[in-house]
């Protein structure tokens, strides 16, 4: 072991002993610090997980969605538009989509009902494939219990549940009910030849602006939503919510940094005496600063670990119960959904720097001032 390492080990040993001597005070400090880390980490994990979920959804989404507008409101679109759009050069596939929302008065939940584009996912007549949130919201006794939904006309419609959607992207699948096209039209009393909107696939995504320009000429009253538009909207919504949370947490962090600086500059009589003794018996300023850096490092690492692990459990195990109303926004409407756990090194590094640097910086200057004074002056 080199002399440098032995020195660090000796300083760390002394620091641990010093922390243990003032354990009540230090536990309180770590608890407050961990709470701040917990808030920042929760906001960050939650927002990133939502963005990831959105990214997964968008990965399979068509490049372009065409929606009819009337008085600025989304209106059903006729099947004749499909042929018009298919004639544009560069368009590879045009599909009419059927989807809508269903308010379940039984439990106040909103479901998304949809006819799947992929025939492999399509249930048979009288059947339904449902997201994992539906049985929970409905309090269904078993996974394949039949689903009774009250149609717009008031009568009950029964669907045999033949499958559950995968939980990989719970953001969209949780409240989803997939139906056969005929069942969907019957349920909503929707005639043949009209669709909710139209999905357009494009051969070369770089040509999308040109295709949109041509489509606008064909359908002047329609709205054209590209995948990038949706992606940017998601990004803005979640970043904005995360921003608000991080701003609040940042204020807490600033307050904590001021508190830390106050604590360090107003060293207790015992701490000041200890620094004076250490200096008198031969420790130099850098030894004292190194020892205090160890102390700050151990405190901040402990708080970081505690806050991060708690935030991880809070977000991915308890669905961010404390901050969900702010971060999820509209998604707090039933059914609930769980996020797939995923964090990366960049997130952790950002979080570490965001939460530990202010603390160490806030404590370092006052410690340096105390450590560079003469021992006689410190002890006096």
């Amino acid at each position, binding site marked *: 072991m*080199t*002399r*440098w*390492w*032995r*020195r660090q*080990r*000796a*300083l760390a*040993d*002394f620091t641990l*002993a*010093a922390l*243990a*001597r003032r354990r009540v005070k230090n536990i309180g400090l770590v608890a407050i610090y961990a709470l701040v880390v917990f808030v920042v980490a929760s906001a960050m994990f939650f927002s990133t997980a939502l963005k990831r979920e959105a990214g997964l959804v968008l990965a399979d989404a068509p490049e372009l969605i065409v929606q009819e507008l009337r008085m600025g409101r989304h209106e059903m679109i006729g099947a004749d538009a499909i042929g018009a759009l298919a004639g544009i050069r560069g368009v590879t596939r045009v599909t009419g989509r059927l989807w809508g929302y269903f308010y379940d008065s039984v439990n106040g939940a909103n479901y998304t009902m949809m006819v799947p584009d992929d025939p492999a996912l399509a249930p048979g007549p009288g059947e339904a494939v449902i997201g994992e949130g539906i049985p929970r919201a409905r309090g269904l006794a078993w996974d394949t219990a039949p689903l009774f939904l009250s149609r717009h006309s008031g009568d009950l419609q029964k669907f045999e549940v033949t499958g559950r959607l995968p939980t990989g992207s719970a953001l969209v699948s949780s409240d989803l009910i997939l139906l056969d096209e005929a069942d969907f039209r019957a349920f909503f009393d929707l005639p043949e030849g009209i669709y909710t909107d139209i999905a357009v696939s494009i051969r070369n995504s770089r040509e999308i602006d040109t295709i949109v320009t041509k489509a606008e000429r064909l359908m002047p009253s329609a709205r054209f939503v590209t995948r990038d538009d949706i992606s940017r909207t998601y990004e803005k919504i979640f970043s904005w919510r995360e921003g608000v949370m991080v701003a609040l947490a940042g204020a807490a962090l600033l307050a904590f940094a001021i508190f830390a600086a106050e604590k360090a500059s107003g060293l207790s009589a015992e701490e000041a*005496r*200890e620094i004076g*003794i*250490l*200096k*008198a*018996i*031969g*420790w*130099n*300023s*850098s*030894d004292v600063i*190194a020892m205090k850096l160890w102390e700050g490092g151990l405190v901040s690492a402990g708080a970081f670990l505690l806050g991060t692990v708690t935030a991880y459990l809070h977000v991915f195990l308890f669905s961010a119960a404390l901050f969900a109303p702010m971060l999820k926004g509209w998604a707090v409407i039933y059914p609930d959904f769980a996020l797939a756990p995923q964090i990366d090194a960049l997130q952790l590094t950002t979080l570490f720097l965001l939460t530990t640097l202010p603390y160490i910086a806030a404590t370092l200057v006052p410690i340096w001032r105390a450590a*560079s004074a*003469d*021992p*006689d*002056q410190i*002890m*006096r």
Partner: protein
Amino acid sequence: MISLSSVTKLYNEGRPNGVRAVDNVSLDIGADAVTVLKGPSGSGKTTLLSLIGCMARPSAGRVMIDGRMVSGLPESFLTEERRSTFGFVFQRFNLIRGLTVLENVMLPAAPLGPDPQALAEAARDRIAALGLADKADTPVEHLSGGETQRAAIARALINDAPVLIADEPTANLDTDLTHRFLDIVADLRAEGRTVIMTSHDPRIWQSDLVNAVIEMQDGRVTGAFA
């Protein structure tokens, strides 16, 4: 040899509560000798001891150790001088509570990065030499007054400093423990170490062990007796 030339130490200079703790003191302290600074409380003994031991810098004047002027040195050099030249026994011993005797004694050498086992061994030897072998692993707050003092002496000597500085080392000790302390001082002198201490305890400055007594009053040296 430690030499002070026209040394003055002011605290809170220029303020209404300013104090001239040491006032224009010049003196020489011989090596391998026992020197006692005596005088009433507030006479400047402890401040003078701090100036000699490089724990404080004079406001004016010069402090020289073995011909090297140390009073103008920057902090890092002063620390090195303290570490290599002096061992300190403070008035209230100033051991660090919560640590054992062994840990306290090892503390001055810790930042030097020595081999931990060799350091622990040397510290145990020091502790044993002062009759505290069975207390090495005891937290210092559980020691008696005399044991605390001996632990403080062991800590002061761990870096093998040639000069021991002690501030009122017997202030809180009974006669028996004071005589035991003087025995330790005799051993240190026999080892060739210099001992400088403050005391207003006549049992100390009247002892045959003492080579020089410096009398202080109001920050000034008022007498020196060999």
